């Protein structure tokens, strides 16, 4: 039986509700963080191995593209951590009221972005 009803599967025109946005970004940031693990281990290993290694890591961080990558990584980390803490709060039945839930989701989303911008400021001024 075919029913005529409006159907919209265009992902670009669908406006995600705030909790859905925070949730999918939690997932996206998690995958980003997983993929970056080997790079982080290389940086840790190189910087500890020798003074030359340490200096090369410090020098690499001066590169604008590396700074941009660090900024993105910083956001992924902060968003994932904040959204995770929100999960832990929900597990303890904290902030389940609609108004509180919305506020907490806003804090997660904008808190991560604002703190990332602050870190960006430090990266580019250093």
């Amino acid at each position, binding site marked *: 039986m075919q029913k005529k009803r409006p159907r919209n599967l265009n992902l670009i025109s669908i406006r995600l509700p705030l909790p859905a946005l925070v949730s999918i970004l939690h*997932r996206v940031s*998690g*995958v980003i*963080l*997983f993929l970056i*693990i*080997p790079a982080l*281990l290389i940086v*840790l*290993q190189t*910087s*500890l191995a*020798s*003074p030359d*290694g*340490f*200096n090369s890591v410090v020098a690499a961080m001066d590169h604008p593209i590396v700074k941009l990558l660090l900024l993105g990584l910083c956001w992924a980390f902060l968003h994932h*951590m904040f959204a*995770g*803490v929100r*999960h*832990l709060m929900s*597990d303890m039945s904290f902030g389940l009221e609609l108004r509180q839930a919305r506020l907490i989701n806003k804090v997660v989303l904008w808190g991560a972005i604002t703190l990332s911008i602050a870190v960006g400021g430090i990266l580019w001024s250093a």
Partner: protein
Amino acid sequence: MVSLILGISRPSMRDWALQRTTAILMLLAIVILIGMLAVYQPQDHATWKQVASFELTRISLLVFLVSMCLHAWLGIKDVLMDYVKHTYTRATLRVLTLASLIGYTLWSILILWG
């Protein structure tokens, strides 16, 4: 072990508990590590190496990295379950994920104590 402590034996509940336990361990480790960095403020290799050689730093970093690998395994497993419909492709990706995470854990130990 965690499921034993929390008295949870069903697999999905065990994953749920482990995801949260590792998250909290990582939060604690981050607080300690940021504290160490704030106190010693390493600007050169010698100080950096010194900070990394403290037992507190090593244990925190190890707890963080091992928790991260366990946490990532549970998360990526869910992501693969949701988006990769083809059974064999999913199985292959799961094996690759697990193998790389075990590799990362061993690598971390090597970095910290090698």
